[in-house]
């Protein structure tokens, strides 16, 4: 017997379309997610991210196109897909009347893990997700960040190899967001494939191997974070100086023309990391000029959309 080592894509989608009534939400989507990687679908509110995730997770049927999730068709082989995936939706999918431990036990039972294995896995997740104190409390009493962690822990009880995270950090405070990122990184280190959606360029940049930018139901850009960022002119430093002389000296030595004589500011392209900051300041030191003030502008979703569509990221929620 021979084993062939082929990296089968965890998700592959071609020509996917979906409309609600006359409203086209997904309009010919093609994408491939390689096993063991993180794929980020980046887009503003109403872009169609949740619709995409619901179709891949067997909750919604597409109108057209071909889809394989974990090697199966989500409509005809729904149970095979369901057995392979875990879904953490945009809104907490927890039983708020039950405690944290009871919620996890419920998942263990529904994954038919058996008593001892179920208990072992639940205990491990409670520790790993820092939920020991909350374990006996009803989920309704936890903070948003904690509920999100319970939600993800429930998804992981069944040990899925492919997980969908729909806006996992929207509405979280910065600390909970960083904790969530850490958890995603650990999952990837274990070989789990992650398909996540987000409205934050920074989040996609931090986590993803590949990013696809979704706008009005179409993928307008796709690539590694570096490939995308190279095409976004948004990242820069703004340096302000005390007098026009210093401004001119700095502009000359930094070789930039984008200066504002009235505001005494200079705009220097930069991706905002410490190394490039140091380099700029060292260059200025060399000619004995120091800026009065410095601000860092990192590219955000608006810059992405401006770069790829010529429009700012527009939210497209129907008025109800």
């Amino acid at each position, binding site marked *: 017997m021979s084993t062939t080592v082929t990296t089968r894509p965890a998700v592959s989608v071609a020509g996917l379309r979906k409309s609600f009534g006359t409203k086209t939400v997904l309009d010919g989507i093609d994408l491939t997610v390689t096993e063991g990687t993180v794929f980020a679908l980046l887009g503003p509110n109403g872009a169609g991210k949740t619709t995409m995730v619901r179709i891949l997770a067997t*909750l919604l049927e597409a109108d057209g196109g071909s889809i394989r999730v974990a090697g199966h068709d989500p409509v005809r082989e729904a149970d095979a897909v369901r057995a392979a995936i875990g879904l953490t939706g945009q809104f907490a999918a927890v039983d708020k009347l039950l405690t944290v431990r009871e919620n996890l036990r419920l998942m263990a039972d529904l994954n038919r893990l058996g008593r001892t294995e179920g208990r072992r896995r639940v205990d491990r997740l409670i520790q790993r997700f820092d939920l020991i104190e909350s374990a006996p409390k009803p989920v309704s009493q936890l903070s948003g960040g904690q509920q999100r962690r319970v939600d993800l822990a429930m998804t992981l009880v069944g040990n899925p190899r492919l997980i969908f995270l729909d806006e996992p950090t929207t509405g979280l405070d910065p600390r909970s967001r960083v904790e969530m990122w850490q958890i995603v990184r650990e999952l990837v280190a274990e070989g789990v494939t992650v398909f996540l959606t987000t409205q934050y360029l920074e989040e996609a940049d931090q986590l993803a191997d590949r990013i696809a930018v979704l706008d009005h139901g179409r993928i307008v850009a796709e690539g590694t974070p570096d490939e995308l960022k190279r095409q976004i002119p948004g990242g820069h430093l703004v340096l302000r100086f005390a007098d026009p002389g210093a401004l001119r000296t700095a502009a000359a030595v930094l070789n930039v023309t984008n200066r504002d004589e009235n505001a005494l500011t200079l705009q220097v392209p930069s991706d905002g990391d410490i190394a490039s900051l140091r380099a700029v300041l060292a260059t200025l030191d060399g000619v004995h000029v120091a800026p009065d003030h410095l601000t860092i502008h990192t590219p955000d979703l608006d810059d992405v959309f401006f770069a790829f569509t010529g429009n700012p990221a527009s939210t497209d929620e129907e008025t109800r």
Partner: protein
Amino acid sequence: MTTLAHTLTDSRTMFRRQLLHLRRYPSLTVMLIGLPVIFLLLFVYVFGGAVGAGLGGGRDAYVDYLTPGILLFTVAGAVAGTAISVAMDMTEGIVDRFRSMAIARASVLTGHVLGSMVQIFIALFAVLGVALLIGFRPTATPLEWLAVAGVLTATSFALTWFAVALGIVADSVETASNTPMFLSLLPFLGSGFVPTDTMPTALRLFGEYQPFTPIIETLRGLLLGTGIGNSAAIALGWCAGISLLSYVWAKRKYNKRAAS
């Protein structure tokens, strides 16, 4: 494991979930007991003397007459709780989680039905206890008691499946708490509280042909030895029909909502 074994395992898991809800929130069960008990006391002590005289007895005769109808009123009130908790599941994210897992599809619904039936029987025992305290004197033999339990089980099963369907089609928890209310009216529009002969023709006809009447007549016959006739067969026919239609309706709507 076979599909059947999976279905049983998953249904048992979902049943346990509902039992946890019951244990965690006993106040709901208390409320479901409270209303029929208040009605029982109200009718017996306020109207009982007068109505009982009309029945050819006194207050005690009316307790006997009223109790089967109150038992049904208890079931009808309790299934409103079922519709609410199903609607809560449907409007919160948890149902999407269940649907994205490889579990037996209907197990969530089965769990709700079994959990509600446990709750209904707790309520029935409590209400029956109060009735016995205030003078209900059934003449049923052990075998007849068993039959009473059977009729109540069949009725609860049918009405909970019906409530599950109502909970699924409701677009909000609010709607789900209102729609089953008409069920609580049905025992009044029949022989539950007073005999139908004094009612206007239209109402009397409705009362005679609506499903609760043969159920009440069967319970009354088993508990008190009044004539049953063909009521038992009609009652069980209604229960079977309602169960089947509601099950099919609930399952179809559950799957449909999954796909939209």
